[in-house]
């Protein structure tokens, strides 16, 4: 397999990585801010601005997850730029499709699935470090929503027990303040876990190109670039997903919101500590479901939850298939031209999806409208 250094392709791969990072940013804003926006603890624009700043800070706090992604999942000796590019292309398309439908799906799994799929297409399954994948990605991914739900249910139950005698208005005022704190923590936590993934992938690309030696740590310019991009994506908002998580799953009061976000923050930060790349989206959703279960009489829309669960299960394999297809096209055409062809197709698909989304626009103006079963609320009469 050719390992010829190709800096043009490397540049295109880095651009794709940064684009993925941007989609990751807006896909995940909801995880930190949906509950706060839904309970009006924070105004929509303030919320996304706050989240963007904290994501930026968080991205610098820990490199554990980047190391896992760069060195722990695939044989770095067998990775080529075409593989990384194929993986990113598959992940970007999946992220955009799920965003269009307002489904909070895992950007992490899209990325990892895409890269694994492209890797298997290129070099066969022995190129994948299956043990690392299972222990540091798959098992945390499967367990974390349940752990988050358990923590959130417990927290919600305790909170409502403690504040039983408080008047509702006072209670909600106090917890809205608490929500600002807990949502901020989730944004910080998200920065420590998610920004790292793209950094890890770009490091992998640099290693594949020969620019860096195997096992190298992530360079500072990569960290800065990814931190800024994910913050920018966060600020762009992903209103469709915010609406689904904040209004579509559980009708949330502020004590529940705070319990949910605290549970998410705790689970995400603890996982970062161990270098586990988990889906912050799945953790956040698990927490929100948990806060619905913890409060007597709370309404949980299980059909929405069911749709999300389906999307989760198919994300890794579907992104894998898309990654493999992207790789085959790029490799089939060959060389730099192949990468450019796939890049043009990617731009075309992305534009199409974006154009399609304009027909049913969700924005700060209608993100808190009554949930009537679809992502975009019906047009005002």
């Amino acid at each position, binding site marked *: 397999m050719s390992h010829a250094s190709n800096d043009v392709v490397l540049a295109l791969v880095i651009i794709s990585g940064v684009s993925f990072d941007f989609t990751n940013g807006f896909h995940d804003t909801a995880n930190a801010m949906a509950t706060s926006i839904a309970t009006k603890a924070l105004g929509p624009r303030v919320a996304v601005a706050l989240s963007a700043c904290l994501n930026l800070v968080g991205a610098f706090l*820990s490199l554990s997850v980047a190391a896992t992604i760069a060195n722990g999942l695939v044989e770095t000796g067998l990775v080529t730029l075409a593989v990384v590019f194929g993986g990113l292309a598959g992940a970007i398309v999946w992220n955009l499709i799920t965003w269009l439908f307002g489904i909070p799906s895992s950007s992490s799994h899209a990325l990892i699935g895409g890269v694994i799929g492209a890797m298997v297409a290129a070099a066969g399954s022995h190129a994948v470090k299956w043990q690392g994948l299972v222990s540091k990605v798959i098992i945390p991914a499967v367990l974390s929503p349940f*752990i988050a739900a358990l923590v959130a249910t417990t927290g919600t139950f305790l909170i409502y027990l403690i504040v039983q005698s*408080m008047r509702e208005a*006072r209670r909600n005022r106090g917890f809205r303040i608490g929500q600002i704190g807990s949502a901020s923590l989730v944004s910080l936590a998200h920065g420590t876990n998610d920004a790292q993934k793209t950094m890890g992938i770009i490091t992998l690309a640099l290693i594949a190109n020969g620019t860096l030696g195997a096992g190298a740590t992530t360079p500072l310019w990569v960290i800065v670039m990814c931190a800024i991009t994910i913050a920018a994506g966060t600020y762009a908002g992903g209103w469709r997903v915010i609406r689904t998580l904040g209004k579509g799953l559980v009708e949330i009061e502020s004590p529940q919101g705070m319990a949910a976000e605290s549970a998410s923050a*705790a689970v995400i930060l*603890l996982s970062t*500590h161990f270098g586990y790349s988990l889906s912050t989206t799945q953790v956040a959703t698990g927490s929100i479901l948990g806060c619905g279960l913890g409060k007597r009489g709370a309404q949980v829309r299980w059909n929405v939850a069911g749709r999300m669960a389906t999307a989760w299960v198919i994300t890794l394999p579907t992104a894998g298939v898309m990654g493999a297809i992207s790789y085959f096209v790029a490799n089939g055409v060959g060389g730099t031209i192949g990468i450019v062809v796939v890049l043009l197709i990617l731009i075309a698909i992305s534009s199409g999806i974006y154009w399609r989304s304009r027909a049913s626009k969700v924005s700060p103006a209608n993100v808190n409208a009554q949930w009537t079963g679809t992502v975009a609320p019906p047009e005002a009469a």
Partner: protein
Amino acid sequence: MNGWINLTAIWEIVVVGLLAGAGLPALFAIGLRALGTPRKGHRTTAGDALIGGNPGGVAIAVGCFAAVVAAIGYGIYIIVLSGHK
């Protein structure tokens, strides 16, 4: 240690997750409730005010909130320390 699943890590995430993710909000709730205790002699706090005016209540509340902030600060400190080996 089994290379396929790190049970110690997962167990730690569950336990510390519960302590921090459920325990800290509960502590916050206790603080909030203590903060709202009305002055001796008053039956309830006037209006929607968060602070009830009872000095003992305020002291407990401050203690709770300080503990929450300290725990969060410590947690972030640990993350930063272990994230830059």
